[in-house]
């Protein structure tokens, strides 16, 4: 049976986001806007082992703050949530990556994971991410999240 990487990414991220940050993700409506948001935060990390590749996330600051506030148990407008928002996004990516690798490769292999890095993202980068077949789009309320899972040479893997 072939593994659909986008399906795995969708399912695992939704599970992690819900369990770790009480964030409920949905697939976008068919007519959802593809316009780049005014401000975009991105994070990425790489993995190496039986599979090599990278995982990327891009979203708006509002989602980062919501993740931080839910994880820390403070209000979204609390200064602690603002301070922790980039760090919380990196941790969400980190946990998702670990779970995805177990899904794809099982529990035996050992992977080297890079430390996640976060940065602001341009509108062009957001648009390019959306054009990739390795990218999925999810919504948290009205806010978009783009996730990209790139895996080099995985036997039995397919995209849509």
């Amino acid at each position: 049976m072939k593994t659909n990487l986008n399906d795995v990414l969708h399912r695992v991220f939704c599970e992690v986001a819900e369990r770790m940050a009480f964030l409920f993700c949905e697939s976008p409506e068919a007519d959802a806007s593809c316009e780049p948001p005014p401000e975009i935060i991105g994070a990425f990390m790489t993995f190496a082992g039986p599979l090599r590749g990278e995982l990327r996330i891009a979203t708006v600051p509002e989602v980062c703050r919501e993740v931080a506030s839910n994880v820390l148990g403070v209000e979204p407008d609390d200064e602690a949530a603002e301070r922790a928002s980039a760090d919380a996004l990196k941790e969400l990516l980190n946990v998702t990556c670990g779970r995805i690798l177990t899904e794809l490769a099982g529990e035996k292999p050992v992977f080297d994971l890079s430390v996640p890095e976060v940065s602001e993202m341009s509108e062009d980068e957001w648009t390019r991410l959306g054009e990739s077949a390795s990218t999925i789009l999810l919504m948290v309320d009205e806010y978009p999240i783009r996730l990209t899972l790139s895996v080099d040479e995985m036997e039995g893997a397919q995209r849509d």
Partner: protein
Amino acid sequence: MGLNILIVDDSDTVRAVIAKTLTMCGLPINEVYQAPNGKVALEILAEKWVDLVFSDINMPVMGGVEMIEKMHENDLLTSIPVIVVSTEGSATRMEQLKSKGIRAYLRKPFTPELVRGVVNDIVGLRHENQPE
């Protein structure tokens, strides 16, 4: 007498969550020290009395595996229980770490109940706030 606990993780958020979880668990805690990597953790361990260490694996400067190896080279630190808290789910990695003496492995995301159970198993505590 409360426990002195050291939390080692490069994420400020994760360290805050573990510290909060330990408080919520009703464990008798005296002091919680925090370090962003294994190197800083070893510096704290050289100066402070610590009963229990929570450590991530994947950190910049010095990761958790190297820190645990250095603790085992030091007669004063080798008996301190280490609980690894990591995103990694590799059974092979867990076996490797257990052979280096770690006491437990918690996979992120974890629940407060899991943390409480693991700490109670290790330090042999049954606090009065803990539900039956």
